[in-house]
C-alpha cells in the first residue's frame, strides 16, 4: 500500500512538472495570432538507366602453346588446355544498377582474326545468369558463339531488382601456335532502357 502511494505521488509530480514545462514553452514561443501552415512535400523519383561491369578483368597473363598441339584453348571457367597461361576462373559480370529494366547488347572491338591472329584462331563468348532470373526474356548465346564486332543482343529484358540483376559473360580463346604478340580488345555492353 505504501509503495502504491509513493508511485501515485511520483506520477502526480511528473505530470505537474510536464505541465509547467509546457506552459513555460508556450509562453516563450507565444500562441497569439498563430495561423496553421500546411507544408506539402513533393518529390519525383527519376528513372535512371545504369549498368556496370562489376567484374571487368580477364587476365590470362603471358604464356605459350605447348610443344605437341597446334593450338591452346583458354577459358574463363578456370581451364587452360595445351598452354602455359594462368587459369582464369571468372568471366565478366555485368550488373544493372539503375531503376529500370534494360535490353543489353554486346559488341567487341575485334573478332578472332584481329584479336588473336595466327591460323584459325577462335574468340567466343557465352552468357549465363550470375543471379537467377536476371534475364526474364532468355539469354543469347548460351553456347560458345564466335564474338562479333556487330551488336549481339544478349538479353532483351534484364532486371534491375538487386537480387536478380547480374549476368556473366564467359570467354574462350583458341590460340594457334603461330599467333604471337600482345593482344587486346574492348567489349562494350550497351544498356537500353525499356
Amino acid at each position, binding site marked *: 500500500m505504501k509503495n502504491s502511494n509513493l508511485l501515485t505521488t511520483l506520477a502526480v509530480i511528473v505530470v505537474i512538472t510536464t505541465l509547467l514545462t509546457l506552459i513555460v514553452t508556450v509562453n516563450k514561443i507565444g500562441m497569439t495570432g498563430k495561423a496553421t501552415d500546411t507544408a506539402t512535400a513533393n518529390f519525383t523519383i527519376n528513372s535512371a538507366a545504369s549498368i556496370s561491369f562489376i567484374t571487368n578483368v580477364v587476365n590470362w597473363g603471358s604464356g605459350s602453346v605447348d610443344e605437341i598441339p597446334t593450338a591452346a584453348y583458354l577459358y574463363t571457367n578456370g581451364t587452360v588446355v595445351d598452354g602455359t*597461361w594462368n587459369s582464369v576462373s571468372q568471366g565478366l559480370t555485368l550488373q544493372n544498377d539503375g531503376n529500370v529494366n534494360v535490353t543489353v547488347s554486346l559488341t567487341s*572491338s575485334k573478332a578472332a582474326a584481329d584479336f588473336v591472329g595466327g591460323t584459325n584462331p577462335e574468340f567466343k563468348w557465352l552468357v549465363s545468369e550470375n543471379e537467377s532470373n536476371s534475364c526474364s526474356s532468355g539469354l543469347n548465346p548460351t553456347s560458345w558463339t564466335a564474338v562479333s564486332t556487330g551488336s549481339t543482343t544478349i538479353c532483351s529484358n534484364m532486371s534491375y531488382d538487386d537480387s536478380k540483376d547480374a549476368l556473366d559473360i564467359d570467354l574462350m580463346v583458341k590460340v594457334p601456335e603461330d599467333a604471337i604478340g600482345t593482344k587486346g580488345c574492348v567489349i562494350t555492353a550497351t544498356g537500353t532502357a525499356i
Partner: protein
Amino acid sequence: MKKLVVILLFLILIQNLSALRVIPAKTEINFKSNLEKDFIYTVNHLNPNTHFDLYAKGDLVQYVTLDKESLTGGGSFIAHLKLPEEIEIPGKHIIYIGIREKVDEELLEAPVGTAVAIQSVIIINVPYPGKYVETQFSANDANIGEPVIFKLFIQSRGDEDVTVSPRIDVFSDKGDMINSISFNDRNLGKDEKLELQKTLNTANFNSGTYYAIASVNYGDKISEKNVSFRIGELSLKILNTSKLIKVGGIRKFTVQVESSWNNKIEGAYAKIVIYNKSGELANFKTVPIELEAWEKKDIIGFFDASDFEPGNYSDIVTLFYFGGSAGKSSVKFDSVRFIKERIINPYMILSLVLGILLIINVFLLIKNERKKK
C-alpha cells in the same frame, strides 16, 4: 625440329570500374505539331577522366539535336526536339539518346578491356487516325480464398474521342469460361488514359493455372490482352525421385518437388523407406529445405546402401511441409533400381596397353627385318 615457342599475352581489363548512370532513362510524349522541347540528361560515372561520346539514333532522329558531342567524367547535356507539322506513320516512335564510353585507341594495342554505353529513350506517340485504344492488363498469383486483382490500363491513342466498354473473362487452363467481369462504359478524350481495377474472389476456385482475357470494345473495334495467373494451395508435388542407385557405401537419394503455394513453404523434408520382399532395407529422412512460392527444388537425403544387392526395390516417399501455421504431408510409392558399381581394374588396362605396345613392337621388328632382306 623443335617447335617455336609462341608467346602471347591476353589481357582484357579496364582502366577503372565502368558504372555509367543516365537520368532520365526514358521519357514519353504525345505527338503535337511543331512541338519543341528540351530533354536534359544527367550523366554520372565513377571516373572523372572517362570520356563519353553522345549520339542520337532512331526513326525520328532528324528532329533531334544534341548541344554537346561528348562529355568527360559526367555532367549534363540537352537533346532538343523539334517535331514537324505531321508524321505520317502513327504509333510509337523511339529516339535513342546514347552515351558511350570512349575507348582510347592507343590502349587497343595494349591490354584492353570493357566499356559500357547507355541508351535513354524518348518515346513519341503519334496518334492513329480516328479511334484507337491501347490496353495493358495484369493479374497477380494468389492462394485459394485470396483476391486476384486485375489491373486494366486503357489509353486512347487515336485523334478522336472514344467510348470504351471493358470486360474481363476468366478461363480455366482447359479453356472453360469460369467468370465474366464487366465494367461501366467510359469516355476517353484524345491521349486520355484510364486505370481500372477489379477483384476476383477465388474462394470457390481450385488450385491451378488460369488465364483471363481483357476485351476493350470501342465502336466497331476491340483491343484484347490476356494474362495467366495461378491460384495456389498448400501443396508440394513430388515430380521425380531417384531411379538408379549404385549399391554399397553412402548413397544420395533425390526427391524433386514443386510448390503449388503462393507463399514460402518451410521445413519441407522427406521420409524415405526402401524395401523389397525380404523387408525394409533403408529408412531415412532428408535435410529440411525452404521453397519460395511456386518453386521447384530438390530435396536430398543420404543412406547406407551397403546391405543392398543389385535389383529392383520399392520406395515410399512421404513429404512433410509447413505453410504458415498449417502442416501437411503427401506420399508417393515408386521403385528404384540398384546397380553394381563398375570398378575399372587398372591392371587390366595396363595389360591391354602392354599388349598393344608388344604387337606394335613385333610389327615394327618384322618390317625392319624384311627391309634388311
